[in-house]
């Protein structure tokens, strides 16, 4: 495997990691503040992709499509929070997991009914279809933009949480929810804001990957699991953990899938290598998770609760 190929795969891993971060940040934020685990988060990602693809189909405007994905998912988030999720916030986590599981099944089917089971495609505008040179390696411009967009979002989140009053409430809420409520902060408003923010991030992620993945029912399921792995590795409730965890998971998964078969191909004979490689590569992330948990059960960057 050439160093150039390796570098390209590393960039892919980074891009995947950034996508995972967009989802993980929302999920972990909602969990950290509202102690609410939302398995329908993957469905929000899926809706973002569908809204974007549908808008692009009608308007042919890439910008509008992205905004539709982001905004649509946010609106959906607000609706969910206002119309029913609030009942679930005080319930035990198992109840939340199961209820949002049911919602996820519903969303997948709804999408299937509206848009059909076949994947729909969103094409890239010409301007974004180029390749650029990164450190001497050709790489698709669009994927690079995803990485940059994700980093910008990460910066924005950091500024929001560390430098604004809302962020202060978020931080306070993450370590001591009851206190924040006791201080007279309108918890309901804060919850809606946080939930909408998380939903928007997920929708943005879905909208951005529309052009490079196929948009189909159930696309949120596998990335949801990956997001959960990210959160478990990074530390539940921790944005920093979500960022670093996402990058690590993105890299390990992508490199695992591409490098492992190649490495095995050198050590073992072809047939065995390819079967083993396929199996092992998707396991790499889970093995990583098991190792992290063996050493640090609370994750790499856990939030300290009072």
């Amino acid at each position, binding site marked *: 495997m050439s160093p150039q190929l390796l570098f390209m795969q590393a960039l892919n891993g980074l891009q995947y990691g950034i996508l995972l971060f967009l989802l993980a940040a929302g999920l972990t934020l909602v969990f950290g503040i509202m102690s609410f685990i939302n398995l329908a988060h993957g469905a929000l990602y899926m809706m973002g992709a569908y809204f974007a693809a549908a808008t692009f189909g009608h308007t042919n405007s890439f910008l509008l499509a992205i905004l539709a994905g982001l905004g649509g998912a946010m609106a959906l988030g607000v609706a969910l929070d206002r119309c029913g999720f609030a009942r679930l916030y005080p319930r035990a986590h198992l109840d939340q997991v199961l209820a949002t599981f049911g919602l996820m099944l*519903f969303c997948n089917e709804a999408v299937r009914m509206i848009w059909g089971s076949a994947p729909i495609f969103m094409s890239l505008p010409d301007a974004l279809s180029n390749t650029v040179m990164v450190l001497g390696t050709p790489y698709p411009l669009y994927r690079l933009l995803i990485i940059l967009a994700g980093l910008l979002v990460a910066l924005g989140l950091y500024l929001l949480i560390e430098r604004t009053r809302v962020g202060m409430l978020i931080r306070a809420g993450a370590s001591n929810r009851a206190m924040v409520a006791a201080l007279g902060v309108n918890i309901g408003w804060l919850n809606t804001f946080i939930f909408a923010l998380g939903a928007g991030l997920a929708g943005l992620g879905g909208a951005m990957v529309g052009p490079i993945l196929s948009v189909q029912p159930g696309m949120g399921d596998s990335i949801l699991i990956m997001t959960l792995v990210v959160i478990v590795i990074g530390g539940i409730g921790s944005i920093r953990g979500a960022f670093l965890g996402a990058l690590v998971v993105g890299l390990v998964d992508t490199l695992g899938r591409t490098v492992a078969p190649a490495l095995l191909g050198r050590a073992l004979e072809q047939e065995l290598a390819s079967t083993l490689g*396929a199996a092992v590569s*998707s396991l790499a992330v889970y093995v990583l998770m098991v190792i992290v948990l063996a050493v640090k059960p609370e994750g790499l960057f856990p939030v300290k609760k009072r």
Partner: protein
Amino acid sequence: MKMESSIVNARVARPSAGVSWPAALTVLLFALLLLVPVYASVTDSSYVLLQFSRILVFALAAVGLNLALGYGGLVSFGHAMYIGIGAYCVAIASHYGADGGVLHLLLVVVVTALVAAPVGLIALRTQGIAFIMITLALAQMFYFLAVGLKQYGGDEGLPIRQLSRFGALTGSHAGLYLALLACLGASLLLLRRVIRSRFGLILRASSMDARRVRAVGTSPLGYRLLAYVLSAELCALAGFFLANLTAFASPAYMAWTASGELIIMVLLGGAGTLVGPVVGAAGFLLLEEGLKGLTDHWMIIMGPVIVLIVLFLRNGLWGMIVSPREEH
């Protein structure tokens, strides 16, 4: 302050005098289940027999999960993986020509223990939501393993040419059904004793207040791990039967959505009750069949039904009739 999960029953019964309703109802339930093969042969409907066999498979799995979830408070979102392991033990052994029924059973028990023990140990290092997510992710690991192993069918699954050999009963649908029913009954009787035993007392106490258990000088880990492994064994046994029922082993048996549905079955019936999971599995699968008959897009109804079950049916169907303590 978190409201109590639907897995912890709100009611505590006074000791019942005279006829024990739960026992009577359970006997009635099993009597009805015994009639199914009779009905099937009379009406010559193998479909009914197969459907109810499938219900019994998941009833057994749900009973297994209930030990860990309902009595142990261990919310495993990955128990379907043991159903898959049981099925694949049968399938892979048959693939290599070994089709002895007893051999298959032995394989299932040993392999499941070898997997469940380390998985349980890893997962039990965490608690709460982390435990849920870790069991989910570990189950995914096995799912991908099954999908990735192309020589055993990969994501298309592995057909089983030779079912578990049990002499004259091999391949008999009625025989399978009755064996399932017998296993289910035996499991319930054994569980009844285990729950009331010293082990069961510690397990139940740990699920309600682990700190209190430590404060009396007992460390909950060993008990929880054993409960986890035993519950995995019951699910794997269910997988053994499933493989023989469908002559097929598939990664789909281990999908995380299957684990989710298994939890719903336990909840629907009544977690922490003995017979609840049986009722829950039957209810869930019959509902699914009914909805499938109505529309192709049955999931659009099933999804909200699941949400409603979680929101409103806190004690489960069986839990509404009996309260857990009365079952002793």
